[in-house]
Every structure is written in structure tokens, then in C-alpha cells.
């Protein structure tokens, strides 16, 4: 039977290799134990002080890069996930994720790339009125959230994406969305177009834009479909 040995080849200034290995073990154990991404601050709280957690994580990431399980970063947090090239083997017929309608998929894409965006703006891009259903379905997935109200007549609600969105699509940041270069190169940023037609570099920064007002207490009731999530305003 073949034996696998872990051999370290270090070109770094001396560090106690044993304690370094122990740090990696601790990070590894915590990340394995949790199904949810963990941020570096939380990880740092568990390892002895003075440890460079970030460097350790990058090291682990490299070690696992070629394996069946990879260490990935989601919204700046770290988590282990199965390697994407093994999807063919692991895809589960039983747990088919919710199949989104074409309308919902397009709406999601518009929200992701154009956020913050109002329903009217989504409709303008799609050339069709967006039924409340699409937005509701997306709110239910937890991938989008109402984030404010546009400072314009009617004060429409603006939507943006959530951390769950990044987690589901395996993105470290909204700037990692696919196809950004194509979108930018396609002249869509042409200044002659109305503002809602532009495709800026997407940002899900929670800070309200200049043209956004904060949500009001009752807004979440309206925006969030399921009764269980509604907050009593009485």
C-alpha cells in the first residue's frame, strides 16, 4: 500500500513548523465544522494571538486547491466547498434546487448587475411589466432584498443582492459576477442613454446611494412576502 507523506518545503524565515502546522489544523477544523462561511475575525478569535490568520488561510487554500474539497472565499468569508469540476458526480437528483422562471432569472440578473434598481427600471430593461410574483420568488430565495427607496416620484423601493446570493453563486464579491467585461465593452455605458440603462460596475454596498432614502418601518412588510417574515408594525 502506498503511503502519503506530508513534506514541507519552506523558503520562509524560520517559524516553528510544528506550531504553524497546529494553526493550520485549527483553521482547518473550524472551517470544516461549519457549513457557513466564517470571517477572519471569528477564526482569529480561536487561534493563539499573534497568528497571521489571513496568511494561514491562503496557505490552506493553496493546499486544498488540487483536492476534491476546496477552500473558497464568499463575501470575504471562508468556507470549504466541493470542487466544482466534480459537479457531474455529486449532483443530486433528489434535491433539485428551485427552478426559476425565465422572468425571475432575468430580473435577478438585472438586480445583480444594476443594483440598486427599482421595479420600474427592471421593467424598462425587460420591456415587459414584471409581475409581483418574480420579485416575491426572488425575495423568498433570500438572494435579493429591498434596500431603500428611490428619491423620485412615488418613492419606489430599490432592490439589491444579499450575501446569500454571493454564497449561492460562489462569489467572493459582487464584482466577481461573470460577463462584466462583455457588458462594459458593449457600449452600454453610453452617456446618451437614460441612467437606468447604464451598466455600472455593480456594487452591493449596503450604504444608501445619494438618490436613495432608507426603508420605512412598514416597507419590509410590503416587500417581504411570507407572513412569517413580516414584522408587526403595531
Amino acid at each position: 500500500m502506498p503511503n502519503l507523506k506530508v513534506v514541507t518545503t519552506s523558503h520562509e524565515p524560520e517559524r516553528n513548523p510544528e506550531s504553524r502546522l497546529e494553526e493550520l489544523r485549527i483553521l482547518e477544523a473550524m472551517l470544516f465544522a461549519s457549513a457557513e462561511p466564517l470571517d477572519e475575525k471569528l477564526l482569529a478569535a480561536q487561534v493563539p494571538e499573534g497568528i497571521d490568520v489571513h496568511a494561514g488561510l491562503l496557505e490552506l487554500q493553496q493546499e486544498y486547491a488540487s483536492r476534491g474539497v476546496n477552500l473558497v472565499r464568499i463575501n470575504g468569508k471562508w468556507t470549504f466547498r466541493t470542487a466544482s469540476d466534480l459537479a457531474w458526480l455529486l449532483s443530486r437528483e433528489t434535491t433539485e434546487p428551485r427552478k426559476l422562471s425565465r422572468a425571475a432569472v432575468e430580473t435577478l440578473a438585472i438586480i445583480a448587475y444594476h443594483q440598486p434598481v427599482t421595479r420600474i427600471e427592471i421593467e424598462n430593461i425587460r420591456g415587459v411589466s414584471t409581475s409581483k410574483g418574480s420579485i416575491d420568488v426572488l425575495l423568498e430565495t433570500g438572494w435579493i432584498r429591498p434596500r431603500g427607496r428611490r428619491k423620485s416620484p412615488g418613492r419606489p423601493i430599490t432592490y439589491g443582492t444579499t450575501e446569500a446570493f454571493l454564497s449561492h453563486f460562489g462569489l467572493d464579491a459582487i464584482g466577481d459576477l461573470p460577463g462584466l467585461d462583455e457588458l462594459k465593452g458593449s457600449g452600454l455605458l453610453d452617456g446618451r442613454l437614460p441612467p437606468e440603462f447604464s451598466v455600472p460596475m455593480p456594487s452591493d454596498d449596503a450604504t444608501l446611494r445619494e438618490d436613495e432614502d432608507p426603508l420605512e418601518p412598514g416597507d419590509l412588510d410590503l416587500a417581504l412576502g411570507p407572513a412569517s417574515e413580516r414584522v408587526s408594525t403595531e
Partner: protein
Amino acid sequence: MISEAQSGDTALSAARATDEPAFVVDVEGFEGPLDLLLALARQQKVDLAKISILALADQYLAFIEEARRLRLELAADYLLMAAWLAYLKSRLLLPDLTSEEGQNAAALASALAMRLKQLEAIRTVADQLLGGAQLDRDVFRRGQPEPIAHITHPEWTATLYDLLTAYAQQRQRTALSHVHVAQRSVWSLAEARTALERLIGQSADWAQLDKYLLSFVADPSLTRTVFASSFASTLELVREGLMEVHQQAAFAPLYVRKNQQTSYPEGSQQQP
């Protein structure tokens, strides 16, 4: 505009004119006029930037005309777009495109082309996004996460003030309740009997009745009633043969114990 819900209903399916294979009227599945326009534009098989809006308008109008010929009901959205395209077409056909009207028409045409291009672009990226690795579909997190238990140890707090007010208040409460509440100043025979039964219950040894009673009574004003009731109950219990009592001399302490019908303490004097 047409709503998504309605678009499914405008089912112009099966309206395939076999004699016109290049032209199929089938609105089902189109998400409104812009979507239809985009589909028609693709038939031109050129880059959207170079598309002929004029030709596109013709295609669209022909499509709508065919639908009307087949008496298919079209949503207002489609008709509105048809009217707008007819207008645009008439402007685009103006002999002098350098005139103000002609320039406006050109701007409108390029804005439409841009909208189509953008719709196509957003669809492309949507496909890329949805076609990428998705959690729980293509990649998976740990199937058996090991939860991190959060154990909280209560750290009890109370202040000396809490302690002293609690003490003073309850002492005051009981002291005053014995004084003010008439019922509390009498010890019922039943109460006395229960207490006595508790006293003799476990012990086979002689117990000193009055000492026990004194320690039992927190409120001195109750002493008399307690004595009276318990003495009466003692006699009752002795009469029932459940208890023995003895007293060495008049006014000497009373001793009680569970009836055992065995020896009595030295010098005791059994009372019936």
C-alpha cells in the same frame, strides 16, 4: 405593457402557416414586444449594433399583420409597439435624414437598437450566472456540519441592598401579617395535628413538645393558641392510640413520641 401572467395566455400557438415556412406566428413564450423584437432581430443574423431598424420594423409589422389575419388576439403592448414602429418607419423613410425630424428618427432608432442590445446582454450574463456552479446543485458544503455549541455559564448577581431589602421586607411582612390578620392568630386543631404528626412521624425517640413548639412559632403572640391547640390535638392523638405523651411533673415539659407500647423514660408517668 403586457404582464408575464398574460403572456402565457396570448397563446398563438399552432398558428403555423405551412405555406410560409419562413414566417411563423407564435407569440407563446415571448415576454412582450421587446422580446419579440429581439427574436426577430436575431433572424437578421447580424450584430445588433449593425441591425437595420427599418427592416426590423417591417418584420415586426408583418408579424402583427399575420397575427391579425389569423384573428389572434394580441395584447395592447404588442399593438402599441406596432404603432410606434410604424411611426418610426415613416420617419426613417423621410427623404432628408439630415432634417431635424430625420435626426430625431435616427436617434430613436439607435435608442431602440441599444435597448435590444442591452436586453440581449443581460440575458447573456444571466445565462452565464445561472450556468455557473451553484451551491447545492454543483458544489456542496459540508454535509454534516459539526455545530459549535454555545455554553453560557450564568454569573449570578445580587447586591447587598437587594439582600437587605429582601430580608427586611419579608420579616416585616410576616411580623405584621401575624399581628393584623385575625385568622393567623389562631392555630387550628387541624394545623396542630398535622404538625404533631410530622413531629412524631419519623422519630421513635421522645421529643419535647414545648421546645419543639417554641421553635416552630416565629411570632410570640401565637404561643398560647399553639399550646392550646397542640395540647388538645395531643390528647386526641393519644386517645386514638397513635401517640404517647409523658410529663415528669406539673408544668414540666411535655414529651411525646409515636406509640410503641414499650418502655417509658425513667420516672415517666403515662397519661391516658
